[in-house]
């Protein structure tokens, strides 16, 4: 473990982005993600990169649009209220098929809400967030190591599919420190012949735009985009199964909720209850397969969330309503305790 250092999740995201070749960061401070910006402010000037604190979240996401158009790896980060402000820009990135990374270290809402951890932006993230038919690739880390690894993965997937990728974390994941190794392989960006890099009078102009006024053409663009989304679903869905082989009760949880749930699963096993955990790592595309499989052998799936029940809808869809799905939650910045989750498991087992 000699190569491991203790880092906050927010710092791990920032350092991993730099490792992934990101040299442009635009942001605006908001708790609990400000360490991402602070880290970038310190590091970027030393490595010839650009850190810019924009005048607003809206400005920051449009600066991201600019750099993405030029074909470079670029990111912004914020927390829930700030992500809402970026919604318009994220929709434009989708409309222009631009790769970019957006980090959301969630806090309780709606409105300005609080500053404590939350997962209440699940719907916003997995359904797109802005207007129009589109998706982002949504990655949900549940350790500081994954904060780093999924940041790198986010850049790679964004480039591969010309999509916006989002790292969807929460206040706990952003603020906690854990050992992290930043020694990983990075796939360099692919050729981007569409990028606005200057023609040097040798080729036609590239135009990056989300405006398409002819309905027949816009329809084609939308359909082509969704064909690409199908490839993402086939190739990039990620999840972790924990003690699911013989499970009779399954927990569905991501991020911090999955960590709390793992404790509860271990305790339940000690009591002789066959509990297991399915942890989606990509929230979009949602991992349907493990839930479909679980529905054939579990009595109940408990969705553990830091919201009023959002992922539970995807769990129900994925398990095709063949098994009871219940909710175990806390909201407003509160986190379910392992005891609360264990109680839900015990109740379900009876």
């Amino acid at each position: 473990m000699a190569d491991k250092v203790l880092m906050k999740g927010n710092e791990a995201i920032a350092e991993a982005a730099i490792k992934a070749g990101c040299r442009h960061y635009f942001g605006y401070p908001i708790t609990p993600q400000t360490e991402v910006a602070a880290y970038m402010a310190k590091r970027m000037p030393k490595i010839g990169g650009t850190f810019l604190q924009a005048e607003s979240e809206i400005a920051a996401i449009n600066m991201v649009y600019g750099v993405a158009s030029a074909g470079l790896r670029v990111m912004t980060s914020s927390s829930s209220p700030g992500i809402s402000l970026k919604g318009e820009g994220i929709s434009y990135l989708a409309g222009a098929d631009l790769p970019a990374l957006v980090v959301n270290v969630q806090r309780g809402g709606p409105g300005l809400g609080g500053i404590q951890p939350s997962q209440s932006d699940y719907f916003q993230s997995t359904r797109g967030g802005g207007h129009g038919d589109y998706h982002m690739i949504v990655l949900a880390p549940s350790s500081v190591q994954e904060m780093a690894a999924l940041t790198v993965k986010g850049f790679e997937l964004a480039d591969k599919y010309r999509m916006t990728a989002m790292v969807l974390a929460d206040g706990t994941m952003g603020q906690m420190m854990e050992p992290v190794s930043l020694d990983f392989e990075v796939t360099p960006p692919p050729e981007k012949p569409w990028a606005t890099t200057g023609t040097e009078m040798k080729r036609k102009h590239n135009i990056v735009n989300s405006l398409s006024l002819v309905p027949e053409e816009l329809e084609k663009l939308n359909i082509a985009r969704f064909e690409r989304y199908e490839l993402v679903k086939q190739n990039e869905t990620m999840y972790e199964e924990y003690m699911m082989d013989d499970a009779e009760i399954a927990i569905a949880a991501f991020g911090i909720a999955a960590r709390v749930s793992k404790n509860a699963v271990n305790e339940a096993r000690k009591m002789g209850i066959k509990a297991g955990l399915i942890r989606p790592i990509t929230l979009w595309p949602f991992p349907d397969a493990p839930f479909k499989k679980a529905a054939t052998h579990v009595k109940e799936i408990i969705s553990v969330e830091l919201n009023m029940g959002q992922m539970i809808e995807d769990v129900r869809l994925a398990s095709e309503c063949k098994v009871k799905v219940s909710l175990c939650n806390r909201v407003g910045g509160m986190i379910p305790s392992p005891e609360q989750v264990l109680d839900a498991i015990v109740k379900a087992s009876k």
Partner: protein
Amino acid sequence: MSTKQFLFSGFGGQGILFAGKFIAYKGLIEEKQVSWLPSYGPEMRGGTASCSVIVSDDPVGSPIVTYPDVLVAMNLPSLDRFEEKVAPGGMIFLDSSLIERDVVRKDVKVFPIPATKLAGENGFPTLANMIIVGKILKELGEYNDEGLKAALAKVISAKHADMMEVNRKAIDLGASL
């Protein structure tokens, strides 16, 4: 299978987060699984600061410490808030120069240390936290020269290398109590 859950608490400025970070790093150096989670809410602005630290042989599940095995209380509000949460058989280390009341619980081991007073008398008034850390390491049987040196080197940045020796002195003082 051993897991120790620590909760460090006190006023902002007492080095609560730093003490937690030191314990976490010492665990990391000794090849344990560790996590460190600070409170970052409004209580950080003038009230109580706290941080959860877990050091374990197994992967750490939830990083939130609700029922600590080891509570460090460096002021009265912290003791008032967390005393009842300490796991039965657990330990409470408190700064007895700042906390005048006794611990009510009978099912925990209590270590009153006049840390702030000792720190002032010994010429390192800001290191009451590390005196307590020294005492914790001794009581847990975790006081060893090599781990201490390595952990200090990790938590003290090169810019503040001159602070290394005095931190070590504070730890040693705590361990001698």
